[in-house]
């Protein structure tokens, strides 16, 4: 089974040379730490930077330089700053190659819910609806089940949606799963996790086709 870092590490393998990548808050933020350093990748943060660098040293901290998670950051050489309209223009205009974000629920039709539990909790969608409404390559990073032990990979979402038929891949603590033809398709097992365990933790329809390899990180 993977921990959050492990999920990020596995997703990092999906990041290809020349990609512009938008990382959501939470697990996705960790992905940056695991991207191979022999490929060229740029991170966009939707509050207005392309070419995001690592966290600053104490001396470098600048209130005018944060990421979408409100953390202080740095800018790499070749970075640029821009306003929120142009930033979402990059996203909406499909100039960003890969979007990685968290979710409360993902359905086998590719629907995603991640911003609201009616009556209980409202985070707000932030930029997520714009991201999932436009991106062509969306990976969800999340735990396979919620704190109550219930599956987050469902036949259909129960919470208010963030976007429809948009998620292409899900990486959880248990598995790597693609969404193909309205079904979950199991691609890889997390180390030490059996196909049975994954089936049990997946409420939606899970296609298991042939031998499922254990993932390498």
């Amino acid at each position, binding site marked *: 089974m993977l921990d959050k870092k492990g999920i990020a590490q596995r997703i990092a393998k999906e990041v290809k040379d020349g990609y512009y990548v938008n990382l959501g808050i939470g697990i996705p933020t960790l992905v940056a730490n695991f991207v191979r350093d022999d490929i060229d990748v740029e991170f966009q943060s939707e509050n207005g930077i392309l070419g995001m660098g690592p966290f600053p040293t104490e001396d470098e901290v600048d209130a005018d330089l944060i990421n979408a998670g*409100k953390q202080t950051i740095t800018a790499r050489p070749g970075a640029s700053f821009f306003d929120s309209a142009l930033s979402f223009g990059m996203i909406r205009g499909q100039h960003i190659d890969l979007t990685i974000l968290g979710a409360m629920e993902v359905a086998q039709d590719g629907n995603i819910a991640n911003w609201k539990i009616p009556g209980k909790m409202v985070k707000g969608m932030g930029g997520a609806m714009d991201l999932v409404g436009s991106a062509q390559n969306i990976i969800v990073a999340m735990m396979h089940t919620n704190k109550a032990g219930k599956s987050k990979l469902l036949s259909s979402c129960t919470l208010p949606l963030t976007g429809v038929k948009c998620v292409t891949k899900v990486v959880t603590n248990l598995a790597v799963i693609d969404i193909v033809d309205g079904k979950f398709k199991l691609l890889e097992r997390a180390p030490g996790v059996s196909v049975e365990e994954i089936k049990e933790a997946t409420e939606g329809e899970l296609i298991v086709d042939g031998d499922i390899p254990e993932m390498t990180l």
Partner: protein
Amino acid sequence: MITKTVNNVTEALEGVKDDMTFMFGGFGLSGIPENSINELVKRNIKNLTCISNNAGVDDFGLGLLLKKNQIKKMISSYVGENAEFERQMLSGELEVDLIPQGTLAERCRAAQNGIPAFYTPAGYGTEVAEGKEVRDFDGKPHVLEEAFEADFAFVKAWKGDTAGNLIFKGTARNFNAVMSGAAKITVAEVEELVEPGELDPNFVHIPGVFVQRIYQGEKYEKRIEKRTVRES
């Protein structure tokens, strides 16, 4: 040169009243118009509709207006990490219109640029699109969204000149640039106010025509929400 300078925040906020709609630049606490917000808190005007990506934190930024119940309605994209905002929303004390961040930005930009409405894919198939026109372009459904209308836009820039030209720093540009000129009156506060000719015209982010009043803020706290550092 047409001069936009006002002497202080008091003059800058002349005409603000109960029941008005305001825009506030900033993302999180980065680039928020601190001085204008503090003055609004002091004036204690009520029943405000506020268009702002976030609502500050409990004890800073728009959180101060929330705490004093000066806000009737928030139009935002994100609530997370603001306990008072979430509490007022869930209890029904506060009306909240949550909209996608890119749509929020584009509706400001539309107001600034005289575009009454546009189509965006964001929010299609979600409760955000309820009651809105949906139309396919290139086989993909899009939602019709309209430009905002607001009485005042409060923005904060790094440098500005007396002609109203603005320059932003880093990611503090965010909504400040797109809200400039998106309301009937735009009030810009700057860290440093200079004379016309001191800013390179190639690198002005917002031309002075979009700004009606400009002043140098008395002080800037520039609070950081999540100070994250690495070993040097």
